[in-house]
């Protein structure tokens, strides 16, 4: 496999491996095509973007600080906040289904209008501690804004699977490729992440997965035994 550094240099490095796992979120289809141009993988990608704002939480940390608060029914659109244990509050709004996926190394600039709306909502919903309350609107401390892409599949179900030989190259036949894909968790990456990680690890090791993963091995003619690496 050839890995190319993305920015300052154009050096290429060769890394050898006998097992390769593609788990690069929305960029997984791109990488699979780059690495295996003859592959006939159909990952059915659908992408949406979420713009977010990270602001300072000026309130004293309590046992209630870490929380997710959903305002969808108040504002009539998707709006949710997450208070974290590092004196910050994160907010995200509606999904954007039209934004184009940029390369992973690119800076993903959020939509200015949406960010402004999130900040306006925050001025109304977020409490600031007394010392900054007097100038509330001008003292909301924005630490960072950004955009995240979420990759799903057409079915909504992720892939947690090995890739059969016939999918990497239609001309080759055999039992195993040593290539695995864990992709398409949509907005449930965190919720499903640790479980998907463990199941993927079990598949890689050739042991029976803890739960039935047949729904997550969506390639036709796929049988688990064909790609177990013993």
């Amino acid at each position, binding site marked *: 496999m050839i890995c190319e550094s993305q920015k300052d240099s154009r050096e290429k490095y060769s890394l050898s491996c006998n097992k390769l796992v593609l788990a690069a979120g929305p960029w997984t289809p791109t990488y699979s095509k780059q690495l295996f141009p003859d592959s006939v993988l159909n990952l059915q990608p659908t992408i949406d973007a979420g713009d977010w704002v990270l602001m300072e939480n000026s309130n004293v940390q309590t046992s209630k600080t870490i929380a997710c608060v*959903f305002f969808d029914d108040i504002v009539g659109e998707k709006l949710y906040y997450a208070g974290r244990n590092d004196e910050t509050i994160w907010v995200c709004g509606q999904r954007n289904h039209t934004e184009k996926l940029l390369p992973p190394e690119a800076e993903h600039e959020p939509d200015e209008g949406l960010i402004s709306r999130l900040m306006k909502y925050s001025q109304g919903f977020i409490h600031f501690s007394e010392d900054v309350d007097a100038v509330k609107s001008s003292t909301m401390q924005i630490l960072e804004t950004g955009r995240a892409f979420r990759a799903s599949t057409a079915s909504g179900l992720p892939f947690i699977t090995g890739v059969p030989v016939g999918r990497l190259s239609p001309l080759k036949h055999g039992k195993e490729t040593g290539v695995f894909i864990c992709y398409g968790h949509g907005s449930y990456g965190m919720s499903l992440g640790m479980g998907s990680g463990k199941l993927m690890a079990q598949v890689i090791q050739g042991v029976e997965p803890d739960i039935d993963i047949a729904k997550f091995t969506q390639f036709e003619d796929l049988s688990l035994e064909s790609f177990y690496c013993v």
Partner: protein
Amino acid sequence: MTGDSIIIVGGGVIGLSIAYQLAKDCKKRHQKPIITVLEARPATFEAASSHNTGCLHYAFHDSFGMDLTALGRYSFKLWEDIANSDSRFGKDSGYRPQPFFPVMPGDGEGTELLPDWVDARNDWDVDWGSKGQVCATMYVAFRALSVPLDLCSSCQHVFLTPSKQPKRSWRMARARMPGTWRRNTHFYKSNGGRSLGRNAH
């Protein structure tokens, strides 16, 4: 698995969870594969939406939600087990069960449950019960799951994009994982320190 060289492309929650579980299993079996996680960004989790929310649940309301429930419950339990079995992880990640608070028009019922950072109003209700039973949250991204790679003898995490400036995410990426780690865990940066080019061949 000993002697295997496994490359995982992607240093987000999925890639790192795979690396973590692989390393954990291999340690248990006294196997020593080389596990390498490749990340195009200068730090882990930078591209993830959930590096900010950290919401965990298995109440999926999509049309395909039923097909995800078993996986969701399984994954939820694993997160819970990690948080409960490693107090440092639980503390660092801020793991908290049942922290979801949907707000809707009402007459103030349940608003006392809201965190202090919300300007609660008396014309809101909080319908905690609709999501409260099957959820948790953690700020897992930078603190708790960045480098799961000490558990087997030879692991590495490779950043393909140079860091621009020292960032919180970069520092956090060195934080602790459940169990012991650091030994034989190597970071590579293209703009200093040990470069991928000098060490990967």
